[in-house]
């Protein structure tokens, strides 16, 4: 296998405490090693360049039934961004819902090497995996939607955590998933009959359980199973004015599950859950209250869900939320409920600077990021493509590292949003070290991916090199150059091979699918009774439900030993 030596770059490796030191990184057999034979190894001269671990994205909708319906319904989105076939790469379309190949290429060009697909309906898991197989250049994993699954609701209602944990373990392994995803807990089941829940203590119709029970129950289950990530939560009332109170309730509820300083939940795309105000007219930021809480507690991580001013496609398992968007906008609207498990919806959406609500959303995400003191609690996302397409990440980096950059954008925003924004009062500017945390190290840590997000010996040799010389430029001033550099990596190295050079794909690799094989002491009994129950709950046979091994092109199971 290839040996590689990356010489003399400015290395940012927060997990190992390395902050811009000039050093060499050696690679052998796809892993970071102590040293290589300099004469035999291929040498990359990284003098004057920034070296980081490959980017990790904790939450991006890139594959599966919902994403694909998004693609189907948006031909007008595709025509403005077409991608030609080359000798090395497949053709496709881009913009807000890119085809699978283009998704892989574009992430790789930005120096990303691992993404998490956050929203997989278990019944349609094969679809998700088939698309992930066709998403090259990246390692990937996917979260099954479990918060409104009838089995979970029933066992939690009975108070039978152990049995619930066994079934969750079974489901994660069966769908080749990675974490417990919870979306608008209780709301999705209610949406089956066109209803919703409004507080974390509302009853889910017919199930005698509340969102609080679901979240706390699954957080406990998560612990019992020793899963590497926490529960991954999209809160109730997402996207509605005043919802920051629900979010605070949610965070407080989860406090009861926490022990020590270990996070027990990840609140995803927090921006969408941090609205204050009573209605759209009075909507304003709740970031101050939310971050005050997060700064005072250690049981949570979150990602931004940054809004980008552009035309995009919103898609979420939160069917009732998408219905609200439909009622507000009258746009084309897809709803897709999945029996026994979850729901979903899609709506195209254009975020506009001169819209007070949109501009406030833009501001909220940055306020959250900047007001939370510990960068290890906070990760950079757009909830692609909900807040905007992932290829806008370099813009967000610019806003984080440069007050000048964000003020330049804020100046162009709706007057009311400008007046309400907390950004003028925030001085903080991220360093490259902070950026390395919020775009890779922190995400890998929160995900429990031991071999990702750092450049220590033994780590996967997933590396990004950017044309940024921190000794020569003041990044806050030259934010445009930094933005360009993060949009087009000088090198991306995947498993020890150079796959991107000067922002172009130079080698096609498939990437792996990482999933959890969760072993419980006693497993779910697959007997006639289970099969009968299965038949009652779903319209497919038990035997045809699992994601069989051949549905995963490059399979990378992690064996997890549960406490139950």
């Amino acid at each position, binding site marked *: 296998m290839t040996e590689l030596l990356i010489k003399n770059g400015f290395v940012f490796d927060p997990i190992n405490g390395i902050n811009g030191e000039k050093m060499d990184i050696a690679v052998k057999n796809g892993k970071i090693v102590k040293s290589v034979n300099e004469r035999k190894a291929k040498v990359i001269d990284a003098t004057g360049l920034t070296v980081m671990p490959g980017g990790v994205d904790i939450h991006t909708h890139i594959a599966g039934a919902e994403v694909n319906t998004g693609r189907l319904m948006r031909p007008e989105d595709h025509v403005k961004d077409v991608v030609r076939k080359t000798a090395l790469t497949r053709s496709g379309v881009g913009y807000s819902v890119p085809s699978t190949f283009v998704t892989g290429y574009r992430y790789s060009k930005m120096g990303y090497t691992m993404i998490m697909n956050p929203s997989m309906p278990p*019944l349609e898991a094969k679809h998700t995996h*088939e698309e992930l197989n*066709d998403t090259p250049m990246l390692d990937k994993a996917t979260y099954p939607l479990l918060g409104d699954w009838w089995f979970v609701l029933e066992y939690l209602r009975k108070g039978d955590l152990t049995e619930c944990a066994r079934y969750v373990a079974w489901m994660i392994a069966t769908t080749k998933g990675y974490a417990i995803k919870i979306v608008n807990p209780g709301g999705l089941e209610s949406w089956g*009959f066109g209803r919703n829940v409004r507080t974390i203590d509302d009853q889910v119709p017919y199930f005698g359980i509340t969102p609080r029970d679901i979240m706390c129950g699954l957080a406990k289950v998560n612990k019992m199973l020793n899963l590497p990530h926490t529960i991954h939560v999209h809160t109730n009332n997402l996207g509605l004015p005043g919802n920051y109170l629900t979010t605070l309730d949610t965070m407080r509820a989860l406090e009861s599950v926490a022990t020590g300083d270990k996070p027990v939940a990840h609140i995803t795309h927090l921006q969408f859950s941090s609205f204050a105000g009573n209605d759209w007219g009075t909507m304003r930021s709740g970031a101050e209250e939310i971050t005050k809480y997060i700064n005072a507690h250690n049981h949570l991580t979150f990602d931004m869900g940054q809004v980008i001013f552009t035309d995009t496609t919103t898609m979420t398992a939160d069917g009732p939320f998408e219905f609200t968007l439909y009622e507000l906008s009258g*746009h084309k609207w*897809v*709803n897709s*409920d999945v029996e026994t498990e979850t729901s979903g919806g899609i709506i195209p959406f254009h975020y506009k600077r001169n819209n007070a609500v949109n501009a406030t959303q833009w501001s909220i995400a940055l306020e959250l990021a900047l007001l939370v003191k510990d960068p290890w609690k906070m990760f950079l996302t757009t909830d692609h493509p909900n807040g905007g397409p992932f290829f806008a990440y370099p813009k967000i980096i610019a806003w984080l590292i440069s007050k000048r950059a964000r003020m330049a954008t804020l100046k162009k925003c709706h007057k009311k949003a400008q007046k309400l924004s907390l950004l003028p009062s925030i001085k903080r500017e991220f360093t490259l070290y902070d950026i390395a945390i919020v775009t890779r190290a922190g995400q890998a840590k929160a995900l429990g991916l031991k071999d990702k997000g750092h450049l220590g010996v033994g780590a996967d040799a997933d590396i990004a090199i950017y044309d940024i010389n921190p000794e020569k430029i003041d990044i806050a001033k030259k934010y445009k150059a930094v933005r360009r550099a993060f949009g087009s990596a000088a090198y991306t190295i995947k498993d020890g091979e150079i796959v991107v050079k000067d922002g172009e794909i130079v080698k096609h690799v498939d990437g792996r699918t990482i999933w959890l094989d969760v072993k419980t002491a006693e497993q779910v009994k697959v007997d006639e009774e289970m099969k009968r129950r299965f038949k009652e709950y779903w*319209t497919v046979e038990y035997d045809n439900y699992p994601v069989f091994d051949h549905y995963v092109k490059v399979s990378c199971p992690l064996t997890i030993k549960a406490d139950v």
Partner: protein
Amino acid sequence: MVVVKSVTCPICGSLCDDIELTIENNEVVKVKNGCALCESKFLGYKGEHRIKTPLIRKDGKLMPVSLDEAIHKAAEILANANYPILYGWSSTSCEAQRIGVELAEEIGGVIDNTAVVCHGPSILSVQEVGIPTCTLGQIRHRADLIIYWGCDPWSAHPRHLERYTAFTEGRFEKSDWKGYIQKVKAAAGKKKIESAVRRGVVKRPKAQPMLQHELVNAPPPTLMKEGRKLIVVDARKSMTAEMADYFIQVEPNKDYEVMQAIRALIRDQELDVDKVGGVPVEYLEEVADAMVNCNFGVIFFGMGLTQTAGKFRNIEVAISLIRDLNKRTKFVIMPMRGHFNVTGANVVFTWQSGYPYGVDFSLGYPRYNPGETTCMDILLRGESDATLVIAADPGATFPRRAVEHMAKTPLIVIDPHMNATAMLGDVVIPSAFVGIESEGTAYRMDHVPLPLKKVVDPPKGLLSDEEILRRILEEVRAIKAKKMREAEAA
């Protein structure tokens, strides 16, 4: 003798996956749980029309050749074509479809599937207004109002009613039918079930099927009965209509007007006519009431809506009706996809190229513009210079002018059967039956992916669609590489 359980039936978009097959000496000898279509396919697929060996047209006649020769010839045709069409795909696996898209891209051709002649208008409508829908189990568990519009599941998707809709039992919707049907089924064959169901319908309280002539004279029956209601709207009285609680016979090609009328009624507007599309307004009021008052309603629609006057407009108004209804109650809509994996073809094309059918790679990137880039448009304009047809029979279903152009240019056919298209072919490559002799994946009409099983070995020497395509693609690449080398040398 072995019994294989949980087999997925590779025939219609219902994609029933509970079929039990008894296999003896590499043959299916018994089919359990399947409908009549399913049985006849599994027991009869070997029939006389099976192509036994690859064929190439020589001096006007199809002559047996080796597989290598046929594959090479096919690759040569495709590699040399300027604007080839790859058509069909609806009765094969997603795995084969994936390679199909790659092949289309490699040769700068057009890939298209049978949606162009069935649910293309539905897809265009989704692109225009979206679609509120769900998986079939949602309907089984929750729907208390089931409407079939312009389709006849009893004939075309025989187990649809029994597995997913009117005659099923769900968590929130009980049915006295399920047990009844199962009992009858255990005891007797298909004919008996049919008549029993019909007898049952007659026995159901307040569930009289209304015939058109009765409709005119009788007062509107109340649809406010307990439990699930089944309404059928169609231009003719189909088998499904006979079982319905309520049948609305619409004059042919008047669906659009009827749908608009219901939309108006739902918005509480008065109609100042007595009849719309031949249906008395009181009956439409009844239907509108049932829609607004249900807890969970669904409209399934078929070719009676997509391929009659109005086409795309019909579906758009149907979806708009559902959009309106969702402001009052829960309502969904779903196309009754015919071929077992036409949904998969749309799904696979979309994730690889962004577009569901009629994808044109001639400029090096995917383009989609129905009316210009579908195979029908291109054939009718006479622009293509080669065609590959797989898992479909356009020779029997396309307009004459399109078929003529297809026959005039080199034609490659991959199919298990000697169908009308294959008879016109220049290269004919027989394939294994997917879902019987080879495995793969298919998507149900509601986008639920299901595995297709290989239950018997294919006849000796026959490959799966997937494998045939893979070999053609490799050969195309080899031919192109050789050409490139020659060009460089010269």
